[in-house]
């Protein structure tokens, strides 16, 4: 039977992708970030997951406001690298597992989650940055992927509680799959940041570290956060953190925390949290 073997929460700041493409990971301002992911990559190499379910948001590459889905799931054989305005990054396409995606989709829809099912989907920085940080990609990616896109950019957004419940439903969906697959699930985005108005650049390390504490110790408390509360404390764009609740909701009650990091050099509280089941 398929099983979730680990969960990772990771920010997906787009400038990280550029640093990787330019090979500038050792720049003094960036080194602390990249060093934190080295043991995570080693851990994933040992874990050898077959599938990575990546919960992320599309910032205008494959999705626009003409019809922006609340929840979408990729069900393609492969996913192209999207162009979100600054060209396609030099990465290979990601292999999908359409059979597994359709199994998840069917389970989720019958479990009363209204998923938009995407048979063609290009992925952008929200998806690619965490994948790039955690996995090698040459000559090809070592995992198949299932993108799960969440609307966190055009209100009304799904609630934190809804995102948590989606995670629980994803867990049920994985557990009911008869194939022997090892699955890791990513929750991406955040942490604190604001990219509009005079409060552009707002970050809140205290809020962020408390969020990381509670995600491990008492995630139910986080499911009660309103978008208003998150925006007031952590910035308008910090609502992305509800996607970390999807990751956490897919894990058991007390997984083992294996990695944690926090670094806030510019305009985002860059968080990292990893659990092993």
């Amino acid at each position, binding site marked *: 039977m398929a099983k979730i073997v680990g969960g990772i929460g990771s920010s997906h700041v787009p400038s990280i992708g550029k640093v990787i493409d330019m090979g500038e990971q050792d720049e*003094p301002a960036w080194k602390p970030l990249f060093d934190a992911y080295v043991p995570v990559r080693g851990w994933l190499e040992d874990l050898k997951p077959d599938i990575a379910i990546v919960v992320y948001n599309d910032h205008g590459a494959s999705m626009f406001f003409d019809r922006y889905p609340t929840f979408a799931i990729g069900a393609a054989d492969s996913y192209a690298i999207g162009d979100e305005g600054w060209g396609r990054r030099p990465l290979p396409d990601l292999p999908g597992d359409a059979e597994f995606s359709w199994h998840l989709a069917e389970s989720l829809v019958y479990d009363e989650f209204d998923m938009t099912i995407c048979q063609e989907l290009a992925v952008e920085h929200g998806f690619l940055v965490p994948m790039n940080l955690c996995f090698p990609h040459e000559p090809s990616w070592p995992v198949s992927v299932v993108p799960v896109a969440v609307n966190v950019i055009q209100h009304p957004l799904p609630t934190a509680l809804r995102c948590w419940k989606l995670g629980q439903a994803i867990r049920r969906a994985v557990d009911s799959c008869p194939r022997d697959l090892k699955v890791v699930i990513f929750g991406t985005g955040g942490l604190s940041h604001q990219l509009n108005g005079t409060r552009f650049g707002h970050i809140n390390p205290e809020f962020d570290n408390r969020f990381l504490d509670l995600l491990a110790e008492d995630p139910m408390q986080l499911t009660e956060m309103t978008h208003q509360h998150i925006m007031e404390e952590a910035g308008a764009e910090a609502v992305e953190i509800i996607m970390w609740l999807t990751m956490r909701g897919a894990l058991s009650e007390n997984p083992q925390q294996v990695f944690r990091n926090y670094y806030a050099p510019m305009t985002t509280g860059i968080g990292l949290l990893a659990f092993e089941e």
Partner: protein
Amino acid sequence: MAVQYDRSKPIPGTTVFDGAVSRKGYRINRFAMSFTQPENRAAFTADEEAYMEKWGLSDQERQFLRDRDYRGLIDECGGNIYMIMKLGVCTGDGLYHIGAQLRGESFEEFMATRGAAGAR
């Protein structure tokens, strides 16, 4: 049921991108989204006026873009930051340049407020 977005409690210095803002900004955001295609980026670079005309931007939107006034496009015209950022590849103005403008600061003033400004 908890109120997810409380319009009676505006958050200082913050725009929440809801339906009203999205409707207001639909044209400029659609225009900016077109920059995800390289042929459109090339068309804008080759002739900005013609490209803005093709998309039927309002006079105000065109003037803000001519002036590279991203604050205007976002605060006055309903532009979404993730869309407006896409214009930057052609105009040469990155996210932090836009952000400094939103804050009413110079680029240098803004960068001085950051923890490790090398991480840009």
